[in-house]
């Protein structure tokens, strides 16, 4: 049976730690978007395995209620502050990608991206790089029906409204 990353049954502690931060901020992004669409949720999990390189077991361990229930968003921010730049950029990229799944960024989502970028101490140029990656990844990870929709809508085209006063 094929597996990604580490072999089945073994957990890489660094991967579980990365997964913990990822699922915390990804959950916050899903919550900030004001909807809990299934495509966003599965894109978050696929991102953890395909891009962050976590195994199925590591994803489950990272989301284990006994492990992550006591953690808050402030804990996630503290963990981000000590994270290597490369991992941090991947997390921010994934967050922007999740937000883009419904093609609008609400003020709350923008704030979450700002909080994460600030905790990682990223420059505006680095944030732009993350946006570029997120745009590409949103297309690659979107389910077929949604991907067609992304491609069918040019800039300024009709997209679902997402909360008042998107800034």
């Amino acid at each position, binding site marked *: 049976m094929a597996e990604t990353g580490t072999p089945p049954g073994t957990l890489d502690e660094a991967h579980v730690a990365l997964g913990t931060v990822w699922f915390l901020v990804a959950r916050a992004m899903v919550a900030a978007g004001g909807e809990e669409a*299934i495509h966003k949720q599965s894109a978050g999990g696929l991102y953890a395995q395909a891009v962050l390189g976590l195994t199925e077991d590591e994803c489950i361990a990272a989301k284990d209620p006994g492990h992550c229930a006591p953690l808050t968003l402030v804990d996630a921010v503290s963990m981000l502050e000590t994270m290597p730049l490369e991992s941090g950029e991947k997390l921010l990229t994934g967050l922007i990608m999740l937000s883009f799944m419904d093609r609008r960024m609400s003020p709350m989502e923008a704030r979450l991206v700002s909080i994460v970028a600030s905790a990682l101490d990223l420059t505006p140029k680095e944030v732009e790089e993350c946006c570029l990656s997120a745009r590409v990844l949103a*297309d690659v990870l979107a389910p077929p029906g949604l991907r067609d929709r992304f491609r069918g*809508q040019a800039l300024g085209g009709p997209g679902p409204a997402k909360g008042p006063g998107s800034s």
Partner: protein
Amino acid sequence: MSDVPDNFAFLDGYDGRLAKLARQAEGYVHTDPESCLFKLRLLVETMAQMMVRSSLPQLNSNDLGAMLSALERAQLLDRRQADSMHAIRRDGNAAVHGIAAPTTTAMRRLRDAHGISQWFASMVKRGARVARQPFVMPDAPSPEAAASQREADALEDRIEIQRQRTRDALLVFRDQSELDLWVPRLRAELEALSEVAATAGETSIDAETVEIMMMLELEQLLEHPVLGTSARGKQREATAALSHVRRSLDARESDYAQQRERIARSLHHGEP
């Protein structure tokens, strides 16, 4: 041949085609499990097409996997129905490709189809009361055959647990109760953090700039004179990484199919 119960009689009042497919599947469950799975796949495909036609006419795909995913995204299928329908799709696909399956596999999917059909019947005629009947397992042709299904049963249990685990690993929230617990809590935390950041005069990223970048057509980005090379590299990398995950999942399903085939052969032909 023992009597076959009519678990799907209630479908007669809703859709004759569905009732016929379900009965055919039920009739084949012991004698020809692959045909049973094929009929069940057809049953699910017919239901999905009916739902897409009435609720998502803009969907431009006849692929069953894509139809089910779109219905789930549109919240027309809940997680339980979607999982059962995907299980029938996967096992039906294996049957179509000539991979033998034991009766146990077909029986599990028949039971899933019974649950889905009751849900579907209550949904297509809103307000109609579907008398919920428990699924009655069609008798095995002989007690010996029933006893020899134990290994197949254990395999099906393992497959169900593993499929559930795969889904749990893939979703940001494992289930509705987790979602109900976390979403209000995270929203409240984010609002508080947002207020603190605003009071401290911390600048937020420019959502409009991000949006403009994100709304670029992918082709435009890939051909961009400055960003194109980097974007193409990222696309290649992401596509390869995603293919790797998909191949792992496919390899697992193929492994299940092989194990089922081995059991089916030993049950039907006494092969080791």
